[in-house]
């Protein structure tokens, strides 16, 4: 998995999330594209890779938000790490299960975001509407997940190379 390809994927993900998806909403909500890509990375390349990608994608996204910098990074990283651990150690999931992974990842990420946000004093995450937002965003993530997993898998697949410490399974 070459660093240049990872960096390109990171930049494209943040730009798409900030510049394109605000125009394509599902009941007023945008998907967590950075999360879905991080989960796809974790799915194929392990929890560390997913956590690091999720952290940088989340922080990159946070630069354009009014919520605290690092909040999305933390939520994306923890969720991608969890998916990577479950995928490698406990559960062997077929590729067609990706919408379920997308939805469950969205729920977990949303709950982390709201929980840590409340502790950090973010007013915007108060109230029951936050949970409605999490549910709708998870549904949107589920729709995107199959396509994202396909693209990420193809873009980062390089069976002849490995980055030290990020071994392929």
């Amino acid at each position: 998995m070459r660093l240049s390809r990872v960096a390109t994927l990171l930049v494209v993900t943040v730009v798409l999330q900030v510049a394109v998806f605000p125009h394509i909403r599902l009941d007023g909500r945008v998907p967590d594209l950075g999360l879905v890509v991080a989960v796809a990375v974790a799915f194929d390349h392990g929890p560390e890779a997913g956590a690091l990608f999720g952290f940088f994608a989340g922080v990159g996204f946070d630069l354009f938000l009014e919520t605290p910098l690092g909040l999305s990074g933390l939520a994306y990283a923890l969720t991608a790490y969890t998916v990577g651990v479950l995928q490698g150690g406990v559960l062997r999931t077929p590729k067609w299960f990706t919408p379920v992974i997308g939805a469950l990842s969205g729920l977990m990420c949303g709950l982390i975001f709201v929980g840590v946000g409340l502790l950090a004093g973010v007013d915007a995450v108060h109230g029951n509407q936050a949970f409605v937002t999490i549910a709708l965003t998870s549904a949107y993530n589920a729709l995107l997940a199959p396509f994202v997993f396909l693209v990420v898998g193809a873009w980062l697949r390089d069976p002849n190379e490995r980055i030290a410490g990020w071994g392929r399974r």
Partner: protein
Amino acid sequence: MARPRNANRRRFVLVLVVLTSLTLITLDSRSGRTGPIGIVGRVAHAIVSPVQRATSSVASPIGDWWSGVTDSGNLKRENRKLRAQITELQNNQKEADVALAQDAELKRLLRLPLLPSARGITARVVDRDPGNFESTLTISRGQESGIEKDMAVVSSLGVVGHVIDSWHGGAKVRVLTDPESAIAVRTNSKHSVTGIAQGSLGSHEVTVSDFPAGAVVRTGDTVVTADLQNSVFPPDLVVGTVTSVQQKPAGLGSIVQIRPSVDFDAIQFVEVLRWVPGQGPVVVPTTTTTTTTTTPGATTTTTPGATTTTTPGATTSSGP
């Protein structure tokens, strides 16, 4: 020994990421977007702004098509309702023109600041809130046009919000429905009352929950910005219309829902007002030029803005 080493490395990466995130959250919560974090954010916005402008022209039609597909059931009903409203508004236009002229004349007599004298900066909406827990717009002009934080933003239909960040090439506007938005309003009726209208997550309306007990507020009342000292917004700008009034228990007042007059999902152009809280419109100073042609020995009296020709033998003096 590979498996324990892998497990240790995984834990190290996880702990590193979590600690870094918590540090960033703490720093940002304490200092806000000032200092290095704010600079990085503004640089990121400045870099992405051209992409946002470029994709806006392509993505907006796609977004409109998508909205049409997902919301087609309501479109025809809304269309009929809007046509009826247009007919009614056209009939009311003449009365409104007379009222506006009288209002402006009275304000001139009382030497109150006039909104039309506040110079505005027109900008195009290039992006909407990228996140799900805020309601913001990104506009196409920023610091290079003199747009600064806390400037009021309006449209032809009423109040949009205020600027919360600006950079070279763009600015971010917090709209009325944002959970962090709070604006002083008053009802534009015979028994006008003042309160604070606040946005909430996922809602297209704003809520006023601090109108005094006994306040007479009715569904359909127009709500405008209140004339409070140091308010970000000039007074008497249209905010919206009351859609529901719910009485609090024990007669402690009422909770009023207001639908903003501006559709924040559809707005294309806005105007950023150069309005200083507590002082009124920013008046751009004008300069007058005086041209004097003097020949030796002539007498000349010069007033600003005039052109004077002096004949020989005269002395020259200039007015203020």
